């Protein structure tokens, strides 16, 4: 008996997007990274190409975060005291990209300032040659106030600026246009909303080659199945040729997984939850690996050990087809 392996023919493909700029292109990054370009469902090499591997970013902050799990702070140690040192440590841990999230306030509880974030971004750019993403604290007005100076400070670096949401994207897109950056387009786990925001951003004149789609996800146990299915649907739509769903996808399993009780809390939890550290690491790693199977192109993690674990999975999955 000879079985014919079913192969799906797809009309569309994911758009390729390049983050970062080297000196040649007006930036200072040591190299750039390109994501997207897939012509099949994730890693099915027997029916299409995966020209670019999913990339692993590590999230850092402009100052030591107040509310991170002690397990994360322990892993980063002193590096977390300074964004430059932290970025360097993240590069050493094997990150493909640095994802810098700006804080709402400084260590004394006073509002963060344009001057302070310029300094932080400059430190990170000086400390590492990796491409960089910078996200605001997540409150519209403050995001705009902080991201515009970031865009100016990093003129020409092709940063990924985040996050654009339907209620607040104009200022960030304008800053990306003015200073040659990219944007992260985030919508709350919905195929149509994802598409719509990409269209709105594109309508402002930003080329599709500068938009990364963030469909949002939930952590394992906290709604991952919604994110998972929205991503599968978006990727299927992209392969079927729906142009406005063809942006590479970024998700933040690190942020999602490390804010839940299973990862954050070591005491006063059921005994059968098992060893705290192991559970917390599994939470982030399983969240990330599951989203990789639903089409994530950029995975933002928070724990350096999991970066190494996920790297091994990607190395195995993304290598060219051996069995057909």
């Amino acid at each position, binding site marked *: *008996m*000879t*079985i014919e*392996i*079913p192969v799906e023919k797809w009309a569309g493909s994911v758009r390729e997007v390049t983050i970062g700029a080297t000196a040649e292109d007006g930036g200072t990054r040591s190299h750039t990274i390109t994501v997207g370009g897939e012509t099949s*469902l994730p*890693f*099915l*090499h*027997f029916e299409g190409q995966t020209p670019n591997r999913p990339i692993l970013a590590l999230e850092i902050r402009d100052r030591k975060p107040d*509310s991170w799990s002690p397990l994360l702070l322990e892993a980063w140690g002193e590096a977390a005291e300074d964004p430059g040192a932290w970025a360097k440590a993240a590069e050493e841990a094997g990150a493909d990209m640095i994802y810098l999230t700006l804080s709402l306030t400084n260590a004394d509880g006073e509002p963060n300032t344009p001057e302070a974030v310029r300094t932080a971004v400059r430190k990170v750019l000086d400390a590492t040659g990796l491409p960089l993403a910078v996200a605001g604290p997540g409150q519209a007005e403050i995001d705009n106030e902080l991201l515009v100076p970031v865009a100016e400070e990093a003129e020409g670096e092709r940063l990924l600026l985040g996050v654009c949401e339907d209620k607040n994207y104009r200022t960030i897109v304008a800053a990306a246009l003015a200073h040659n950056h990219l944007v992260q387009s985030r919508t*709350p*786990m*919905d195929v149509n*909303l994802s598409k719509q925001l990409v269209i709105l951003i594109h309508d402002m004149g930003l080329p599709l080659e500068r938009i990364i789609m963030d469909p949002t996800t*939930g952590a*394992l*146990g*906290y*709604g*991952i*199945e*919604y994110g*998972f*299915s929205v991503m*599968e*649907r978006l990727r*299927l739509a992209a392969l079927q040729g729906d142009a406005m769903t063809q942006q590479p996808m970024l998700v933040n399993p690190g942020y999602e997984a490390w*804010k*839940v*009780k*299973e990862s*954050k*809390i070591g005491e*006063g939890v*059921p*005994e*059968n*939850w*098992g*060893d*705290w550290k*192991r*559970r917390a690491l*599994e*939470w982030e*790693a*399983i969240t990330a*690996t*599951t989203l990789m*199977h639903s089409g994530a192109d950029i995975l933002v993690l928070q724990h350096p050990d999991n970066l190494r*674990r996920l790297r*091994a*999975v990607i190395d*195995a*999955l993304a*290598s060219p*087809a*051996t*069995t057909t």
Partner: protein
Amino acid sequence: MALTGLEIYKILPQTNCKDCNYPTCLAFAMKLAAKQASLKDCPHVSEEAKVKLEAASAPPIALVTVKSDGSEVKVGNETVLFRHEKTFYHKPGLFWHLRDTEDTEELKGKAAEAEAYHVDYVGIDLYLDGFAVEAASGDPGTFKAAIEAIQSESKKPLILIAPSADLAQAGLEAAGDSRPLLYAADANNWEEIAGVAKAKDVPLTVRGESLDELAELTEKIAGVGVEELVLDPQITGYLDSLELLTTLRRLALKQTFRPLGYPIITFPGADAEADETLLAAEHITKYGGFVVLEEFNPASLYALLVLRQNIYTDPQKPIQVQPGIYEINSPDENAPLLVTTNFSITYFSIANEVEGTGWPGWLLVTDAEGMSVLTAWAAGNFDAERIAKDAKAFDVEGKVSHRKLIIPGHVAVISGELEEEMPGWEIMVGPREAVDINSYLKAMWSN
């Protein structure tokens, strides 16, 4: 492949006799195609039509049932490649690999440990499904003793890993009245092993080096009357696993290729190169049927069980709780009042958190059509009007003497509007995450 209503109509008597209680044969055919009626309702159907319809309606992936005194694991019968197309029906069984070369006391200890393992996830009891016991000694007596030792501590279903007929026989004898999955028939031993499986009416795993070999074997084995089969395509790592399991699912669903229309067993810990938890997670997400784990680690198992629960949730029906006002830690009229949506994960995160802190509290759960806070807010199911309406419907004013309502931090933006909708109430913006409720209440609640 399922037949359409018209195709079914063609093989019905076409007399419109109404004996099936439908007005016409066509109407009955349409109901059959939608699986809302049974062919038994037609007393006049021909034998030939029966055979055709039954063949067409047989599930493209067979259902396999493994049972013991008390519990059962059913896998297979899946109908889609992606959960959003319908749902995934039968959660893969998670089994722990034990070997008879271990001391019986050790085995008892492990069985007891697994038996005691239960975790509560949003009100659902999660646990390990059973044990895969391997006759690694090659000795029937030792194998028997090991199974008996395990069963003295736990009645969970079994997979018996026995490479020969006499070991399989011994294992099944020790397993008594239960219905284990037998592992495995291959090109060399299939006749004798299939004989044992048939005599005891137990499901059988078929192992092959390639899909061609697997398909040939399953046809031979089905030919001798063993119909509940499980496939072991012998995956090794992340990539061949994804390719093989996807291909098998597609062959079964898209081509109704019967020889490979069976659930799949995997051993994610067999490959030293792979991370067992992450490969098992892949198998749960992408088409595994039975997943046999080398390691029993509570932390990893909890994460895998939750993943399985999530992936196998029906996407059309988010798990919801009843809207209403819930009491936590026997609150009085001075206790804080919090509001959230009726999405079960949201509800349990908050209820568990408040309960854990020891704070007495009232939790108003509004009807947000089972959506989480942000999603519900975006969809207009958790706005000021809805909250005010439910606050009234569930009589919060009669429960608390204060007039303070704590809303989730994620919907801080509705606080102004809500104050207008609920005159006399102070709207307090709570934390974004449930885990911060305790510190929030400590800082903000003065009563």
